[in-house]
């Protein structure tokens, strides 16, 4: 009896802790993700039932995207296509409401989207209808009335550009209620009188992940028109990959030298390295900044570069390898039995040969852990790139891009886009952790020593 009670108590503790972890760590991510899908991410109280999670809308968005632009995923509208949308309204007096429909000329209010002139759907797409297709008596709550169903046909005749989105507004008199639509509207405005669609040909991804799509579509370079968000992501990948590579090479070489070789001043060097780990970056950044500003004491002028600010060369040179990485590798190499190397030494291998052909292949767990930590560190690095990279916007890394997102869109309360950007920036690190997690589980001591 006592045993069973203890078991239950233990289980309760375990599940309670898991639940607490779930709520504190996974909860915010899940809520953030859900909010990033919503048209109004600040909706309060938070509801779990909104248009973007309803399968009915997924099907409709897929169909409309396919009909409008032949692209069920990303939607859009091309010449010669037509789409049909149905809406149903409840009218309390049983009197048929007047329904005003129009394709509005809508422009983003913030960010680069506010400056770019994109083709307006209103100039190209013709709207036919609304045509009444059904009228039947119905009850809404305790009110008696009629439900009217209308069909709207959007037709894109002749020649013209590919339209990324076709907005639509439907206005009814006060008191008439929208009770159904093939695709739920993005928002209801003017106290329910206006149902407004940001895009009636969204495609599945365009509907569910519209904020994500906007992140790519709306932030474009004014010079070239290319997507800045994509560019920032690629920049971050490039920098992270480069830094992983240099860190792995230099940290293992330096770590090996410190762990195994004998040379004068080795201990002093090691102590100095430890010391450099303890100085916060905020202390040295001004001197580092000035060194980069002058192109490393004017050295860069030999290559015709006036300053290393606003260049990747500057950013990479100032962070080729961290002392922490060298320290990690040194500790790991010290755990490898010397006998392995001595055998190679007897066979006539050089120190470099030993490092690259014997020690490093045995060090995959440490290298894996180092790679993933470096990648994550570089990917998320914010302060130093913020100082070094100011212009043009094309050279930003993703965290800087997200900051400019926050400045541009946060000011107008457009948090969906910012959440979406933040979420996208998190994915690579998550993927990396999923792929490399076994190196963490195995730990640095395994792998090298097999008894």
């Amino acid at each position, binding site marked *: 009896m006592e045993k069973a009670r203890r078991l239950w108590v233990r289980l309760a503790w375990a599940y309670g802790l898991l639940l607490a972890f779930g709520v504190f760590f996974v909860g915010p991510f899940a809520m953030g993700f859900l909010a990033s899908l919503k048209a109004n991410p600040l909706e*309060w109280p938070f509801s779990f039932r909104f248009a973007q999670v309803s399968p009915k809308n997924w099907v409709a968005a897929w169909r409309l995207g396919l009909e409008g632009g032949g692209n069920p995923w990303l939607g859009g509208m091309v010449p010669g296509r037509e789409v049909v949308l149905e809406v149903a309204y409840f009218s309390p007096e049983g009197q048929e409401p007047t329904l005003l429909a129009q394709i*509005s000329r*809508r*422009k*983003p*209010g*913030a*960010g*680069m*989207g*506010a*400056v770019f002139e994109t083709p307006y759907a209103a100039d190209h797409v013709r709207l036919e209808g609304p045509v009444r297709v059904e009228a039947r008596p119905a009850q809404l709550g305790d009110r008696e009335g009629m439900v009217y169903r209308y069909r709207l046909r959007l037709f894109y005749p002749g020649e013209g550009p590919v339209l990324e989105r076709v907005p639509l*507004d439907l*206005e009814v008199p*006060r008191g008439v209620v929208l009770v159904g639509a093939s695709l739920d509207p993005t*928002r209801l*405005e*003017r*106290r329910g*009188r*206006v149902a*407004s669609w940001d895009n009636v040909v969204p495609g599945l991804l365009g509907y569910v992940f519209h904020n994500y799509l906007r992140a790519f579509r709306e932030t474009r370079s*004014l*010079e070239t028109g290319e997507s800045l968000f994509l560019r920032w992501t690629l920049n971050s990948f490039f920098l992270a990959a480069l830094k992983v590579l240099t860190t792995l090479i230099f940290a293992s070489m330096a770590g090996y030298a410190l762990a195994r070789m004998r040379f004068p001043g080795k201990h002093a060097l090691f102590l100095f390295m430890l010391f450099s780990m303890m100085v916060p970056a905020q202390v040295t950044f*001004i001197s580092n*900044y*000035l060194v980069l*500003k002058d192109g490393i004491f004017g050295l860069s002028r030999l290559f015709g570069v006036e300053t290393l*600010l606003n260049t990747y060369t500057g950013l990479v040179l100032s962070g080729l390898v961290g002392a922490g990485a060298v320290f990690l590798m040194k500790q790991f190499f010290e755990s490898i039995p010397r006998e392995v190397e001595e055998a190679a030494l007897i066979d006539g291998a050089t120190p470099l040969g030993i490092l690259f052909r014997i020690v490093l292949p045995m060090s995959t767990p440490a290298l894996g852990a180092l790679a993933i930590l470096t990648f994550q560190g570089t990917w998320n690095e914010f302060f130093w790139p*913020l100082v070094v990279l*100011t*212009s*043009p*916007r094309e050279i930003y890394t993703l965290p*800087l891009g997200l*900051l*400019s997102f926050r*400045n*541009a869109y946060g*000011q*107008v*309360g*457009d948090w969906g886009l910012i959440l979406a950007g933040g979420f996208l920036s998190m994915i690579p690190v998550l993927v990396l952790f999923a792929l490399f997690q076994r190196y963490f589980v195995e730990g640095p001591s395994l792998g090298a020593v097999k008894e």
Partner: protein
Amino acid sequence: MKRWLLLALTALGLAMAQTQVRISGWGGPDTAVVSGLLKEVVQRQLDRENIRVVYEPIEGDYTQWLFNALSAGTAPDLFYVDIFWAESLFATGRVAPLDAYFSREEVQAFLPNLVQAFTYRGRLYGIPKDFNTLALIYNKDLFDEAQVPYPHQQDTWDSLEGKLRQVQTRLKDVAGLCLVADFARFGAFAFATGWKPFDAQGHTVLDQNFRRAFEWYTGLVRRGAARFAQDLGEGWTGGCFGGEKAAVAIEGAWIAGFLRDKAPNLRYGTTFLPLDPMTKRRGNFVFTVSWSLNAASKNKEAAARVLKALTSPQAQQWVLERGLAIPSRKALAQNPYFQRPTKEAELNRVVFLGSTAQGGNVYPFSFRGLGGDWMRPINEALAAVITGQKSVDQALREAQAALDRLTGRR
């Protein structure tokens, strides 16, 4: 021989060719405006003079960045200066006076209120690039539904309050105004009474006029004409307005971009802030930003040319037509854009006129070198009274004591 000479001249020409002028401002929405402006207007004008503009928008804390860059000697040739901290920057001598580069006529083409805001000890330190004032923006649907006439420019505090109270009583789920405890909004009402932030000795005195505005403003919630913004889950009056939680908002033209995304179909109108029933005047703030010249710049002549191009009539027209900001030239008052029958044009027109005589007692949003420290006691007093934690007497007494310490009175 001739060919060599030609080649040499070409090489020399190329070497001398381009003067680079670096300009900076904050990032965010301004990046789009300035990049567009440079690409479509400014650079074209400057190409003939072989000046190349390099634009570096700053994301993050711009003020801090600018002060650091000016001390490190890496600051650009031209940069934004916000009226809020302009005086403390001009006092450092790091900004070059512009009197040598701009003739009297050129300066007079800008709105005098704005020019005055960037004049320090008789010298001009910045050309206002654009500005904003406050206006009263109202939701036509809500007033129609409550069957209350729209606010208009003859409204006094009392008549406006009456309208707001009626909307709030009749619609139940809507506030008249959502009230914020912020001098950036309340101050306009205090100015209407004739009260000034600083007297001749540089002291702040919260006199009877101030008290009258304070009592009216903080009492709006109690009298059923407004709700406290925090109680509605919003931080600014525009947020309440966009979500149709409040019938009016007191904001500047920046609200247009917000509403374009948040509520594209909202039917709104704009009018001036209400008049003080006693003085029959209104008050307003000017929020403005200038382009200023770095005193350590190596090519001031070229930078001054860029400055002129950035604030030229063509440049301002471009900005105005995109509805991105309100430019600072006097002549734009007659601009056809303001007469367009759209809600955004009306908003921009009222905001533009808010800085002129129609705006009443208009003061720049700047408090000597004290900045935000000066506003803090007043904001705290506003919050304490609106939430019912302190009486008006107590709150004003404490605010006065804090301001006395700050301005060295007594």
